[in-house]
């Protein structure tokens, strides 16, 4: 049984349908004397099991939004609730713990650790979760087989193609069985055929119940998602598809 299946079996029993909730979230950077409002009052709700594409031109605040969603950064003001918990009250260790247990990251440049093998890269979250070695090795192997790289376990990332590397990264993001995956331009460094495969894989994960938030600037990639959220100048410009994104 894969962790993704387990998730879909239990995802709406006794839990709130809203997984992520932003209330008037702002992020202001100080650039010298100038104040940059990367996010200028964003309120939204992402439901459990939804698949969102966040779109917008560069500088529109979509990366900032994803960093805040991923608990890599803190809002300057406003409230962020994750699964009913106020993220603002968490300290650095608390944020790390939240990332470790509840979030999966997929990056444009894969971000695998070059000196580790495929197996060790997939095992990384399990290591920090404190899994016993044999168990985490078996789990990593299962995940690698699921993404079709069961025969590449002892390879280094550099020995793999871009598509394969991104699949390893997806396997890693699934290792801790998080309810939500955050993808930052996951196909940005891939050719279109490989990119399509990756998007199909994400679609499959969505069907198994994962909530997926994907940043992209391409319309046809965004069309894989059930909803599209357009950002402009640090605010939500418009929303298409599923209606539960914003108040």
């Amino acid at each position, binding site marked *: 049984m894969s962790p993704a299946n387990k998730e879909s079996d239990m995802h709406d029993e006794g839990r709130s349908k809203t997984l992520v909730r932003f209330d008037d979230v702002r992020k202001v950077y100080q650039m010298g004397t100038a104040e940059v409002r990367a996010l200028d009052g964003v309120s939204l709700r992402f439901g459990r099991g939804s698949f969102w594409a966040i779109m917008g031109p560069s500088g529109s605040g979509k990366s900032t939004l994803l960093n805040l969603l991923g608990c890599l950064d803190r809002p300057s003001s406003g409230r962020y609730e994750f699964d009913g918990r106020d993220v603002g009250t968490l300290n*650095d260790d608390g944020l790390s713990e939240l*990332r470790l247990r509840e979030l999966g990251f997929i990056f444009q440049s894969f971000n695998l650790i070059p*000196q580790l093998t495929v197996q060790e890269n997939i095992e*990384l979250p399990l290591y*920090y979760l404190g899994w*016993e070695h044999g168990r985490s090795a078996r789990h990593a192997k299962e995940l690698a087989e699921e993404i079709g790289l069961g025969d590449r376990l002892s390879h280094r990332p550099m020995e793999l193609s871009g598509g394969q590397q991104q699949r390893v990264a997806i396997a890693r993001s699934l290792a801790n069985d998080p309810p939500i995956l955050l993808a930052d331009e996951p196909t940005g460094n891939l050719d279109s055929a490989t990119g399509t495969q990756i998007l199909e894989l994400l679609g499959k994960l969505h069907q198994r119940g994962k909530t997926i938030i994907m940043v992209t600037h391409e319309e046809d990639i965004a069309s894989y998602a059930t909803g599209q959220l357009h950002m402009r100048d640090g605010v939500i410009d418009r929303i298409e598809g599923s209606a539960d994104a914003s108040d």
Partner: protein
Amino acid sequence: MHQIRLVRNILLGIKNLLLHKLRSLLTVLGVVFGVGSVIAMLSVGEGASREALEQIRKLGSNNIILTAVKLAEDEAASAGHVRVGIYGLRYEDVLRIRETMSAVTRTVPVKHIRKRGRLGERSLELRIVGTTPDWFGVVERNVAVGRILSEHDLDQRAAVCVLTEYGARRLLATEHTVGESIRIGGNYFKIIGIVQSEQVSGAIQTPDLEVDAYIPLNVAREFYGDMIVRRTAGSRERELVELHQILVQVGSDEQVEPIAAALKAMLERFHKKKDYRMSVPLALRRAAEQTKRTFNIVLGSIAGISLLVGGIGIMNIMLASVTERTREIGIRRAIGAKRRQIIGQFLVETVVLSSVGGVIGVGIGLLFPWLIRRFAGMPTVVPGYSIALSLGISVGVGLIFGLYPAIRAAKLDPIVALRHE
């Protein structure tokens, strides 16, 4: 659980270090040589001090040795014409010591005469030692054959002698036999015993030599008198010396210092000139220990400096490594690693690095004393504590100098770290 994690951390650390073998090796060279030099120098120091202490032990820690010293002005005055130089220790000194100092257990008068000894075809330049049986109680040497001098020999004014093994080998065709007589000057002495000689070379002179022949003091006095005539080019030099040495043995080590002070006061009072020298092995031992302490402090400073340099080297490389692996740190943080886990990872790496350096250093530290012993002939002793100390210090160096780079790694902003190229 934590142990397993630590083992995995260590293995991961080793793996990362093996990625840059040459760099890792160069990084730890400072620690390698620091540790190596600590052990090598400590072993040389320990060897030297043990040798010194061994020599002092042979002198006896509860002994005080008084030796006659010929004064320089006498020598100058005697040049060109016949003159009698009177100096040295007196028979009455011995009596005074015996009468006034109850803590003294043995007082041994010693008279030296240089004479050639002959036995058949063989001859050897001997140092005749006129003394009492107590000599053998103060200068404890094993008796190889026969017996030592006795009170009876003195009472009888017996012309007997005790040779050393060396002297016996040179003078007797067959080794280790007693009963033959050797001729010294115009007198014949019956060999009654042979003792082992333990004379050691070095800074400290033991009272015995390997060319010694021990005879009763009164016999020496009777046969050779107290006058010594030396023939030098163009002139004859005569010296009147009653005793060349007095060995004083004290009951316990605690009484050595007060007795030494009393002896000094007594000699100063009765000798107008300072024609004697007092050596106190216990004080020598104290001096040797003090020297060793000083030596260890100097060593410690040198070792400390080299380990400091080694530590800075490690810190430098670890800072570079943190910069190089900024992205990795960002990835680990994004995945959920806590700050202290990042600190732990880098600390383990530096400790592994410095420990490996320490182990290599111990290897070098063991090799050098061996080479010194082998090729320079110096005694070396590698003290067990020096190995434990060096390894402990190298782990400490890793911890101290790894802490700052590790904290810097942990403080990186995950977003910035992830964007780092």
